[in-house]
C-alpha cells in the first residue's frame, strides 16, 4: 500500500514537474546551503587544525609585550635555557628571530623574510626537511652562513628542474649556502605565508641581520602527560622571577597556548555554523510554507478525485496518508537535489578558497531527513483537510 502510494505521489509530481520544482526551490536552496556551508566549515576547520598542529599541538608561544611604561624587554637565549632546564615537563624550548630581506640567486631576486632558529625550533613546530639536511651542530654554534629554503622562495628564484642544494645564494648582503628545503607549511596565522621564508641558524640571523642577541619569541614544547596549566604557571613564575617583576606588577610578556588558539578558532567556526543554520532555517521555513501552499492548491484541484476515493471506500487516514506521502516525497526529492547541489558547490568552492573538501555523511543524512520531515510538518494540515472532505460535496465539486 505504501509503495503504491509513493508511486502515486511520484506520478502526481511528474504531472506538475515545473510546479514541483518551483515549490521545492526553497527546500533545495536551504539544504544546498546547509550542506555547502557545513562541508566548507569542516574543510576550514581541517585546514586550521593542520595549521595548529604545525605549530605543535601542545606548545606555548612566549613573546614580550609593551608595558604601561612603553618599553619592551626582549627575551634572550639565557631565558630559553632556563625554561628548558628548570621546568619539569618541558621537552624543547627554542627561540626565534626574523627580519625582512631580499633573496638573490642567479640574477633573480625575491623579497622575503629570514628567520633564525635551531633544529630544535623546527622540531618543536613539527617542520621537516623534505630535501637536504638540517643544521650541523657547529653551524648552529658558530652561526655559519647556511640556509634552508621555504618552498615559496625555492620556487621563486631557483630553477624548477635542478636541486638547489649546495647552491650559493645571497640574502641581503649575506652570502650563504643552501643545505636543504623545508616541506610545505601553508598559510600561517595572520595571513602570512609560512613557506615564504629562508631559515638560517639563530646566531647567524642575530649577528648578521639584527646585530643583537634578542629573540622575537620562543616556543616551548611540553610533554602532553603534564597539565598545560601547571606548566604555564611554572613558566610564568620563572619568567617573572628572571625579569624581577614585583608581586603586583603585570606580566610584560604573553604566553599563548596553541591548544587554546585551537579552541578559539573552533568557537569562531561554531559561530559561523550557527549563523548559517539560522539563514538555512529561514530558507527552509519559507520552503515549507511553499509546500503547504501548493499542497492546499493540490487538494482543492483534486477535490473530485478525493470524493471518488472516499466514495469507493477509502478511509480518512488513507486519503491523509496519500497527500502526506506526496508532500514528503516532494520534500525528500527537494532534499536530494539540494544535497547534490550542495555537494557540487562545496567541491567547487573548496577548490576556490583552497581548503580541503571534507565529505561529512552525517550532514547529508540529517539534511535529507530534515527535508523529509518538513514534508510531514507542512503537508499534515493540507492532507488532514483532504481527509475531512465530505464525499458528497467533494463529488459535486467542479
Amino acid at each position: 500500500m505504501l509503495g503504491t502510494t509513493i508511486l502515486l505521489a511520484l506520478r502526481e509530481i511528474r504531472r506538475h514537474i515545473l510546479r514541483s520544482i518551483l515549490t521545492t526551490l526553497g527546500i533545495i536552496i536551504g539544504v544546498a546551503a546547509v550542506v555547502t556551508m557545513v562541508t566548507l566549515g569542516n574543510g576550514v576547520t581541517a585546514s586550521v587544525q593542520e595549521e595548529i598542529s604545525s605549530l605543535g599541538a601542545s606548545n606555548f608561544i612566549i613573546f614580550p609585550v609593551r608595558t604601561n611604561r612603553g618599553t619592551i624587554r626582549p627575551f634572550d637565549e639565557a631565558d630559553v635555557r632556563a625554561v628548558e632546564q628548570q621546568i619539569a615537563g618541558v621537552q624543547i624550548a627554542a627561540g626565534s628571530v626574523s627580519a625582512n630581506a631580499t633573496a638573490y640567486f642567479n640574477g633573480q631576486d625575491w623579497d622575503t623574510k629570514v628567520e633564525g632558529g635551531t633544529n630544535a625550533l623546527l622540531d618543536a613546530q613539527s617542520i621537516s626537511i623534505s630535501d637536504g639536511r638540517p643544521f650541523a651542530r657547529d653551524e648552529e654554534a658558530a652561526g655559519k652562513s647556511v640556509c634552508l629554503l621555504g618552498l615559496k622562495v625555492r620556487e621563486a628564484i631557483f630553477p624548477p628542474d635542478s636541486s638547489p642544494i649546495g647552491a650559493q645564494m645571497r640574502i641581503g648582503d649575506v652570502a650563504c649556502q643552501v643545505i636543504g628545503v623545508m616541506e610545505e607549511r601553508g598559510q600561517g596565522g595572520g595571513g602570512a605565508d609560512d613557506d615564504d621564508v629562508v631559515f638560517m641558524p639563530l646566531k647567524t640571523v642575530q649577528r648578521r641581520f639584527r646585530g643583537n642577541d634578542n629573540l622575537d619569541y620562543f616556543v616551548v614544547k611540553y610533554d602532553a602527560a603534564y597539565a598545560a596549566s601547571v606548566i604555564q604557571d611554572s613558566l610564568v613564575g620563572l619568567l617573572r622571577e628572571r625579569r624581577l617583576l614585583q608581586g603586583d606588577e603585570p606580566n610584560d610578556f604573553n604566553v599563548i597556548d596553541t591548544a587554546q588558539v585551537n579552541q578559539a578558532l573552533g568557537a569562531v567556526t561554531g559561530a559561523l555554523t550557527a549563523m548559517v543554520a539560522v539563514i538555512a532555517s529561514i530558507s527552509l521555513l519559507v520552503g515549507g510554507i511553499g509546500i503547504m501552499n501548493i499542497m492546499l492548491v493540490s487538494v482543492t484541484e483534486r477535490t473530485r478525485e478525493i470524493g471518488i476515493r472516499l466514495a469507493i471506500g477509502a478511509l480518512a487516514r488513507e486519503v491523509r496518508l496519500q497527500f502526506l506521502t506526496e508532500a514528503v516525497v516532494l520534500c525528500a526529492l527537494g532534499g536530494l537535489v539540494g544535497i547534490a547541489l550542495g555537494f557540487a558547490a562545496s567541491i567547487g568552492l573548496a577548490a576556490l578558497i583552497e581548503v580541503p573538501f571534507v565529505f561529512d555523511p552525517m550532514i547529508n543524512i540529517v539534511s535529507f531527513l530534515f527535508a523529509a520531515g518538513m514534508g510531514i510538518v507542512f503537508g499534515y494540515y493540507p492532507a488532514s483537510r483532504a481527509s475531512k472532505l465530505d464525499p458528497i460535496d467533494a463529488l459535486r465539486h467542479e
Partner: protein
Amino acid sequence: MAEPLIQLEGITKTFGSGAAAFQALKGVDLAIDRGEFVAIMGPSGSGKSTTMNILGCLDVPTDGVFRFRGVEVQKLDRDQRSLLRRRYLGFVFQGFNLLARTTALENVELPLLYRGESKAVRRAAAMRALDQVGLVPWADHTPAELSGGQQQRVAIARALVTEPDVLLADEPTGNLDSERSIEIMELLRRLNADGITILMVTHEEEMAAFAKTIVRFRDGLVERIERGAPATEGSPA
C-alpha cells in the same frame, strides 16, 4: 420471507438548522430485496438524491433506521461506513467520475487498492471487470481517449470489480445520448440478471422501464411503488 437486504424505516433528513432548516426527507419507509433492480424517480427536490446518498452510506439520516444486511448504518461512524462501501457497494455516477490521466485499467483497479490486494490480483480482477463491460481492448486508454459511453462502462467496471452486493447508479445515462443510454441500461439489466442488486436514480421514464421496480418520490416522501416484470426494451412502463 427473509429479512430484506435494505430497509429504511421512518427516515428523515434535515439540512441546516433553525429558520433556514430544510427537511429533504419526511419519513421514508422502503424495503429492497436482494436481486432487485430499483429505479428511483421523482422531480428535483423530491428527496431522491438524498435517499440515494443515504442508501450509498455516504450520508446519514437525521432520524430513522437504515438497515443494510441487518446492520444499522445510522449508528456507524465515518470510517465504518467507508469500510461498508468498500466491501459491499459499487458506485456509478452521472459524470462518470473517473480519475483523469489514469488508464481505464488503473481506474478499475482503484477500489482493490484500498482492499490491499496484490498487483497481480488487482490486474486479473480489473481485466475480468473490463471484460464484463466489453472494454478489454481499451484497458490502456485514459478517459480523455474514450467516448462518454465507454467512460461510463469503465465506471461500471470499477463498481463491479469488488463484486459488490449493491450497485448504486446516480443518473448513469444523464450525460449520454439515447443509443449509448440503452447500451448502458442493457448492461445493467444483464448484471442484475447475474445476481447483483441495482439501485438507480433517473428522471427518464425510458431508462426506468429497464428496472423491475420503480419507486416514485414526491416532497420528501415515497409517493408510489410500481412493481412488476421489467418492461420490454425501450418501451415506457
